[in-house]
């Protein structure tokens, strides 16, 4: 299931609800992306980030996320998939995105979780804007996100 929403969500409650109930499932993998409170890659001495705003392309976002979910289900034998992605302004520490996958076996859950977040980073139409003491700016796309996404292009069906 795909959810695109502005309001903050409760990571623990979402995962608990998703994990609930079925004895068919042997493994649950999750990834949560959080707003960091510093600029760039290295926290020490980095300028602080006060807030992050995610703009998105309503309509195309849902469409792309549904495609990515369908691709994950095609590649792995999954019991369920949940992707929640927020847009709008958010504070450091808040969740931006949650990916959950369940499967009879752990490798399918873990690999598909990584796949989903990697593809989502390069295929879902979101744009980040950081607020810093020296002004606001749009976050640039990262080459290593492209690499992480591209490595799945060659994965054979399973």
């Amino acid at each position, binding site marked *: 299931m795909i959810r695109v929403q502005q309001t903050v969500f409760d990571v623990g409650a979402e995962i608990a609800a998703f994990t609930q109930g079925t004895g068919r499932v042997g493994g649950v993998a999750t990834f949560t*992306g959080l707003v960091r409170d510093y600029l760039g890659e290295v926290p020490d001495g980095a300028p602080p980030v006060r807030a992050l705003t995610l703009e998105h*392309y309503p*309509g195309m976002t849902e*469409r792309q996320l549904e495609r990515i979910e369908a691709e994950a289900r095609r590649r792995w034998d999954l019991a369920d998939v949940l992707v929640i992605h927020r847009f709008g302004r958010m504070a450091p520490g808040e969740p931006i995105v949650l990916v959950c996958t369940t499967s009879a076996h752990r490798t399918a859950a873990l690999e598909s979780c990584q796949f989903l977040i990697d593809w*989502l980073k390069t295929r879902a*139409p979101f*744009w980040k804007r950081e607020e810093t003491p020296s002004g606001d700016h749009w976050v640039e*796309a990262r080459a290593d996100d492209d690499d992480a996404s591209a490595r799945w292009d060659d994965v054979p069906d399973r």
Partner: protein
Amino acid sequence: MKVLYFAWLRDFIGTGEETLDALPPQITTVCDLMGWLSGRGPAYARAFADPALVRCAVDQDFAGLDVEVTGAREVAFFPPVTGG
């Protein structure tokens, strides 16, 4: 045809959405449309100054420069995505 702009393309152009009713008939691809838009004034010229930084979607599918825009309902321009 509805044309959408996101992120800094929208900041440069000053609007997130406009409707183009009478495109010249020789504008048939994404590439043609980008060229035509960047001739509409300095704000557009600046937004499209580096085509390598601009991505496009035609009717909500990612589209390369050679994709047809003729007949499209919605074309969007934006920088490389940074979600997740």
